[in-house]
């Protein structure tokens, strides 16, 4: 027994001493001008991108353009810079865990790509700091790039009204529809619904066509955040409420939520949608393939769908007739004027950006590199021949001229988009919401599903204090 007792005792003592190490190190006031005059600089960039895999374009841009060009520029000023790119290509959740661990130990890269909704929780945890604090002085505020970035987009990388990072792009949600199927069902080519009922009517008209699922509205937990962003939340803001309102209350069992769930019920219990698809592990990918094959009438998705999924040459589920057959319309509010801010049309936007590691050894140079990555030339270089929404208005004007959908989204949709709250508990709230949609799709009534949702929220938030309900 001696040996085992000893081992256990030793282990416990060590564990107890280790508990002190659990909390993050106290923030030491770092001098933001440290190493400002260094002539030999080394920096590291990290992103959830890897050459030959996920987000390969970004990885290749960083490795083949950003790094060599910046090094050249700095060399002209007599500064030798070495830059390393730490690639990664895994699920967002796993990437997030890894950079969280790095940031808490003050290690890891100097420039870190993060998703916009992580800003709040990382800031609360002390992992990141406002840009002006890290870099010091007015350098950040005086950057001319800010004028080119929409306020709302900037807000995506801000927390408590302070800028923590530079946004790396934006997106918007619309309703895609198949014009060929519409013609078959006698619906107009330039369809723009103005209420949920309009959408349902179009769906019912499509119901007559054999082998076609009229509407695909993401639901269920299998699709994860895609359910919330391309399903529940655009509907919710269409009823006039954001998931976390300005009154600092989360939407619980409210009429708004019940309305949203009611629409799900209408679609999935009257044959306008495919309930099984929402439960499959690969359901989202399958819905893409089905749309590309002309088997889905109306689909709510982000611009990513247009430029990366059904893109005729390089898409994941390429649709050769995309430009002729695919139409798009703004997402209507429940009824005209019932959206947030009294809007008739709504959308949600997401996107990520890049932050600076507060423990970086070269804050001034890191900011220079970050500003360079977000300059007009660099941004244009990233987009290359493709077309996508960048964070800069000037670049968008130039490159989106030839792509109608993307200019449409940049000009019409992004300005009226809402964003998700960057709070630590948001992922769990999102999960509860996904669960509620799943309940409805599998036959539970909206009232019951909303009640269950309320209970789940109370468990996540530790009480009903921060929850709005009626």
């Amino acid at each position, binding site marked *: 027994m001696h*040996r085992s007792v000893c081992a256990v005792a030793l282990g416990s003592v060590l564990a107890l001493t280790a508990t002190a190490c659990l909390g993050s190190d106290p923030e030491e006031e770092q001098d933001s001008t440290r190493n400002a005059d260094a002539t030999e600089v080394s920096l590291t960039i990290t992103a959830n991108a890897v050459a030959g895999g996920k987000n390969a374009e970004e990885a290749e841009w960083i490795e083949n353009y950003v790094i060599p060009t910046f090094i050249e520029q700095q060399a002209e000023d007599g500064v030798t810079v070495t830059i390393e790119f730490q690639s990664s290509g895994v699920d967002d959740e796993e990437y997030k865990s890894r950079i969280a661990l790095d940031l808490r130990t003050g290690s890891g890269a100097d420039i870190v790509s993060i998703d916009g909704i992580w800003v709040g929780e990382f800031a609360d945890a002390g992992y990141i700091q406002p840009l002006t604090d890290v870099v010091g002085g007015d350098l950040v505020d005086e950057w001319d790039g800010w004028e080119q970035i929409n306020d709302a987009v900037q807000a995506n990388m801000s927390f408590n009204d302070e800028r923590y990072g530079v946004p790396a792009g934006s997106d918007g949600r619309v309703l895609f529809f198949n014009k060929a199927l519409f013609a078959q069902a006698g619906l107009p080519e330039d369809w723009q619904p103005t209420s949920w009922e309009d959408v349902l009517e179009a769906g019912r008209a499509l119901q007559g066509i054999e082998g076609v699922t009229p509407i695909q509205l993401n639901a269920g937990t299998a699709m994860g955040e895609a359910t919330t962003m391309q399903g529940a939340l655009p509907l919710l803001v269409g009823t006039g409420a954001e998931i976390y309102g300005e009154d600092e209350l989360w939407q619980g069992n409210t009429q708004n939520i019940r309305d949203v769930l009611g629409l799900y019920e209408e679609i999935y219990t009257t044959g306008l949608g495919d309930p099984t698809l929402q439960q499959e592990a690969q359901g989202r990918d399958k819905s893409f393939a089905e749309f590309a094959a002309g088997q889905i009438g109306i689909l709510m998705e982000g611009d990513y769908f247009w430029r990366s999924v059904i893109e005729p040459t390089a898409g994941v589920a390429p649709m050769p007739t995309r430009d002729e057959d695919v139409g798009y319309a703004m997402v209507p509010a429940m009824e005209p004027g019932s959206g947030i801010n009294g809007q008739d049309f709504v959308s949600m936007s997401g996107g990520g950006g890049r932050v600076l590691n507060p423990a970086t050894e070269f804050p001034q140079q890191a900011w220079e590199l970050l500003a360079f990555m977000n300059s007009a030339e660099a941004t244009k270089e990233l987009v290359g021949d493709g077309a996508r929404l960048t964070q800069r208005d000037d670049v968008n004007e130039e490159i989106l001229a030839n792509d109608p959908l993307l200019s449409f989204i940049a000009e019409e949709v992004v300005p009226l988009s809402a964003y998700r709250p960057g709070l630590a508990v948001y992922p769990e709230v999102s999960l509860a919401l996904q669960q509620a949609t799943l309940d409805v799709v599998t036959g539970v009534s909206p009232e019951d599903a909303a009640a269950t949702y309320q209970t789940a929220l109370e468990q996540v938030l530790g009480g009903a204090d921060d929850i709005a309900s009626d």
Partner: protein
Amino acid sequence: MSREDGSIAASASERGADRPVSGASEAPGKSTTVAAEPNQAAGQPEPARPSPPPIMTPRQVVGRIGFYTVIALATAFFALPMLWLVSTPFDDTPGLSISLPDLTLNNFRDLMDNPYALGSLLNSIVLAVGAALLVVIFAALASYSLSRVKIPGRDMLLYALLLLSSIVTGTAAMVPIFLMMFQLGLIDSQIGVILVLSGGLLPAAIFILKDFVDTIPKSYEESARVFGASSFQILRHIVVPVIRPGLATIAVWTVVNVWGNFLVPFILLRDTDKQPAAVLMRTFYTEGGAPNLALISTFSLLYSIPVVLMYLFVNRKYGFRFHGGIKS
């Protein structure tokens, strides 16, 4: 576990399995009895020596058919899912279904274009071999001494370690492992990964190997001791050759576990050039999360080949057994 002399009886049975009854295991006495009745042996078949009847009875035929059906079903059950792995990489339009492929080697070419693919396989080998060496050597030493010397509390300790190893291989231990390795300065180091993985695998390895060693009779070691051999020499020259199948099995088991481990290398390594194949496999998805089946299936095939080869090699050379001092 099997008996002390399990090894002996087993080899006897292997030799005697196809022979009629009055074979190896009968005591000497009986054979004299047989020898003393020659006239009986001449005319009639001995009741104690049933020979298979010339024609199989219907019951036996059914039995045979049943036997082969069972074998066929088992073979089909185990082989069916693996067909995807051998057909899809060569398919021009890879999908989830197993169909006759439009043969092409393009997928392999595409895989080669990926800058990290082959390197990651090499990294996997490094991690696996490193961990296997560590585990085999340490487990052999530990299990031998735990088997031969009754240290108080050893069983409790082994069970406790076995249970704890399930925590450390789970997701909840991620943070402590990272923080500890950071303090030790072993982040982004393949050696760090090898140490962590070995630590997690050792308890079970010792557990299995100790059972193995328990079945080896101590007589050889005792006699060697009498002749003045040191413990280490005994271990090296007498015990190890006998437990080689067990060691080989532990080695294969370790390699298999390390080969497929994603979480530990992902958390501890930063440089993509050092990432093993298990991590790289997860990157063959597109921006929206759609799996790139061409790359995944092709890489899976390449990813599987080394482990399979290793198993075949070990099986041929040492036999693959988890228990008993039995040679295959």
